[in-house]
């Protein structure tokens, strides 16, 4: 497919400087950035949030905000013409518009909001054809449906008529890829194309992108923060930090022999499966935990010797959400509601961290909400016993419930929306104490100050509002809020999935230290297996509302039995060139793959949890024997 290819770079950025004027000065987003994308090759631009990597993608397309001031050159070669400087083209003028969508396609991070909800998928995908080609509407439709089929939709004609909100995130990202590639561009800019997706969906989208990129011999500028993705897809890597290129080169050189301290730091900050027990992640900026202060502010959990080792016991939890009927049809369609949580039972032992893993829609967050009494399950029991006698969590009322609320706290996924923007940090932290009438206003102030200092923040931050903090700092505030009441159990619902890699390591270490020093128990909900591997003592895997496998961490990670657990593990991209993703198998969706599971795991065969010994349970057909399962 290399006919007509010349040696020149497809995209060449030379000495690009971009700055934004803001109140009180200039922000330099990019400083002297140079990089290239070769025809038919993938260049990965790696950096954390705020590094300027997205601005670079916008600059190439001319989508930057009006206030951006720039200098340098962005040279792009179309197949039929000499390289032209995109930066010199008038904003939104004819010249740049002829390149956008036609020669350069772009994929955005947020598949949810990057589509207009009011227009059909077909309409939005076909639009670029309408602008750039002379085709009748029937021809456009045919080309669009062919493209939708190419990105993996079984029934393109139906998808053509559907609206974006009717599709899942992964499906939308497929449609987005179809939209970017419909005119057959020679360069694709993918800005964090898989960040908002689950690990299994991410593997599917990466497979698709790689496949299309190779098949169409297309150059790609992949903007990402995930070194695992980079290792699996990129040919060349460019590392950017605070607007400056730190390191650039072929992917082998970058991974085998990282030179720059930043890149080295980034690599040691990622949790991976080969860590020795007790090995700590090394974040770029570590937070020392001030134990003396911590113990002054928070009472460690008492651990009576003779108490029941099970802190929280969940039995037979089931929850089905009522599905809203089709009110626009003349006759209502019968909708079969699948339970979101289906017969879930597990124990959390005192002082352990139980990891709960699964893709979105598997019901893991629903379980967390039920434990917090945020949702009422249809059936099932939850018993909490911290040594003072068992409490029925789901039926607790009045005084008992009030006391229980102090024992179970939650850390949320989104550090932005889980802190009220109208309250100061001090108010946010002292509110729980306020609600439970603990101490005097002065003692609450002292306690929150001590707590903030214990987790490495200055006591003066009490007077500031959440918006003035970074994501990692906000998540620390969220953790501090969960700690103020000295709880016994903390439910962490994807606490690091919205954070950068280096900050993620910081937060994970903080959570680990807190657990050790305060004797906390965690239920750690996440879709990221590597993170769970780092945090958890035992791991439960959820699929379609059921726990399909539960085992001690090292057993589950080294010797998984259930095919879903195996698929999850296979879908994790390692930041290691020696362990590439198997693109042949991870491209399948779980629904497709589940059809090919061995008979013993088929959902319609009356599954029950089977004991494989040493706390390893797997959901399978009771007739199957252990040897057959392990095959």
């Amino acid at each position, binding site marked *: 497919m290399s006919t007509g290819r010349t040696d020149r770079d497809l995209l060449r950025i030379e000495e690009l400087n971009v700055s934004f004027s803001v109140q009180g000065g200039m922000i330099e987003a990019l400083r002297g950035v140079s990089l290239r994308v070769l025809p038919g090759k993938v260049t990965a631009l790696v950096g954390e949030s705020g590094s300027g990597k997205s601005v670079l993608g*916008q600059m190439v*397309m001319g*989508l930057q905000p009006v206030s951006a001031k720039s200098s340098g050159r962005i040279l792009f070669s179309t197949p039929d013409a000499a390289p032209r400087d995109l930066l010199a083209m008038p904003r*939104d003028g004819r010249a740049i*518009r*002829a*390149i*956008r*969508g*036609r020669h350069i*396609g*772009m994929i*955005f991070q*947020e598949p*949810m*909001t*990057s*589509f*207009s*909800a*009011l*227009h059909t998928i077909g309409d*939005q995908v076909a*639009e*670029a054809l309408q*602008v*750039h080609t002379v085709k009748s509407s029937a021809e456009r439709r045919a080309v669009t449906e062919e493209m939708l089929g190419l990105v993996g939709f079984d029934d393109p004609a139906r998808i053509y008529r559907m*609206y974006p*909100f*009717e599709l899942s*995130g992964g499906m939308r990202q497929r449609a*987005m890829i179809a*939209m*970017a590639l419909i005119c057959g561009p020679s360069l694709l800019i993918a800005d964090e194309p898989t960040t908002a997706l689950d690990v299994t969906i991410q593997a599917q989208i990466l497979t698709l992108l790689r496949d299309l990129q190779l098949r169409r011999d297309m150059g790609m500028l992949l903007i990402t923060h995930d070194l695992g993705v980079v290792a699996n897809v990129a040919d060349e890597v460019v590392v950017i930090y605070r607007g400056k290129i730190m390191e650039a080169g072929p992917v082998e050189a970058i991974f085998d022999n990282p030179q720059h301290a930043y890149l080295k730091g980034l690599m040691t900050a990622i949790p991976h499966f080969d860590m020795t027990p007790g090995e700590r992640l090394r974040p770029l900026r570590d937070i020392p935990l001030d134990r003396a202060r911590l113990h002054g502010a928070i009472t460690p959990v008492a651990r009576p010797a003779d108490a029941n080792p099970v802190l929280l016991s969940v039995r037979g939890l089931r929850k089905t959400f009522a599905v*809203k*009927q*089709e*009110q*626009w*049809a*003349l006759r209502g369609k019968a909708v079969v509601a699948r339970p979101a949580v289906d017969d879930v039972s597990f124990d959390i032992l005192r002082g352990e961290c139980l990891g709960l893993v699964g893709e*979105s829609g598997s019901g893991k967050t629903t379980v967390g909400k039920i434990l917090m009494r945020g949702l009422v399950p249809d059936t099932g029991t939850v018993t909490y016993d911290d040594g003072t006698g068992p409490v029925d969590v789901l039926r607790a009322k009045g005084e008992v419930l009030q006391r229980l609320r102090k024992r179970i706290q939650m850390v949320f996924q989104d550090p932005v929306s889980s802190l009220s923007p109208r309250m100061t940090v001090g108010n946010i932290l002292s509110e729980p104490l306020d609600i439970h009438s603990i101490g005097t206003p002065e003692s609450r102030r002292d306690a929150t100050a001590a707590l903030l200092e214990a987790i490495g923040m200055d006591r003066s931050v009490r007077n500031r509002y959440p918006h003035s903090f970074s994501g990692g700092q906000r998540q620390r505030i969220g953790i501090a809020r969960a700690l103020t009441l000295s709880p016994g159990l903390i439910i962490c619902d994807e606490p690091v999935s919205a954070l950068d890699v280096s900050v993620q390591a910081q937060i994970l270490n903080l959570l680990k230290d807190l657990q050790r020093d305060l004797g906390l128990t965690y239920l750690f909900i996440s879709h990221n297996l590597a993170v769970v591997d780092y945090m958890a003592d035992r791991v439960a895997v959820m699929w379609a509302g059921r726990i399909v496998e539960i085992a001690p961490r090292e057993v589950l990670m080294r010797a998984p039995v259930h095919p879903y657990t195996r698929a999850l593990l296979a879908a994790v991209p390692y930041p290691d060139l020696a362990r590439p993703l198997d693109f042949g198998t991870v491209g399948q969706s779980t629904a497709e793959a589940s059809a090919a599971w061995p008979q013993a795991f088929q959902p319609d065969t009356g599954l029950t949890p089977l004991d494989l010994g040493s706390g390893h349970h797997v959901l399978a057909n009771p007739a199957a024997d252990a040897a057959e399962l392990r095959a």
Partner: protein
Amino acid sequence: MVRYILRRVVTMIPTLILISMLVFIIIELPPGDYFESYVAELQALGEQADLDEIEMLRDRYGFDQPQYVRYVRWVGGMLHGDFGYSFAYRLPVSDVVGDRLWLTFILSFVTIIFTWAVAFPIGIYSATHQYSWGDYGLTFLGLMGVAVPNFMLALIMMYFANVWFGLSIGNLMDSAYVDAPMNWDKVRSILSHIWIPVVIIGMAGTAGMVRRLRANLLDELRKPYVATARAKGLSPGRVLRKYPLRMALNFFIADIGSILPAMISGAEVTAIVLSLETTGPMLIRALQSQDMYLAGSFLMFLAVLTVLGVLVSDIALALLDPRIRLGRGTAK
């Protein structure tokens, strides 16, 4: 879709029944009735009241009957177009209101069109040229428009029209045509008068709508789907028309529900100042003199308009927005 509309129409019925009860209770609330205040007024003037005629009317409209009977008669009458009898005008309500209702409709309709025609381009300009001199100037004018009460503007315009041009800008038509049947000359007279009340009444609405359209559009312009559309190579104008403007339309349509009644009832003071032949001044007089059937009919009329307006805007919204039509929120 058909089912949805049917259901919406059916749920309107109990709403309207409830409103009619409330209206009836309200117009019955003041002590006494029209005849008592009428007789008292005549006697105060030293005139002889025609007690026989009054007795006859009382009997005919069931004033000696219990309230619920009168309520049923009133509602029953309205159902087949008998809105009762205006005691003050000594005419059936429909005859009294007749012409004025049409004039009110015309005035309101033209005002809505004026509001939209002016607000749309200004709002779009303001949003796409945020923080430019044009935006600041229009914002200033808009705030003036919101802040100055309509009747005040009417008074000011009347004063200056008189002082500078020697014109009287009151009324909706020349006085010669007021009671004349509709003909071409009358229409021309109306058209030459109508623009002044339209501008005055529409001013605040226009200014408010510009502000809201600007805010909505600015929000939409920052959404990622706009960047997506630009990345496809669409021209800025086409991006604007197809995506953010379409989104911002929603609130225009949601407005219909409140615009209809506001246009009828909100312009009363202005209408009095400009002595317009619309229904507003008549409603106020009817309420003052306890002319209960006239007042009641007006109130019911406003209620029906409100309910209809909401129905129309709901159906239009559902047609325009698939998220509503398909009965699902933006699921994660």
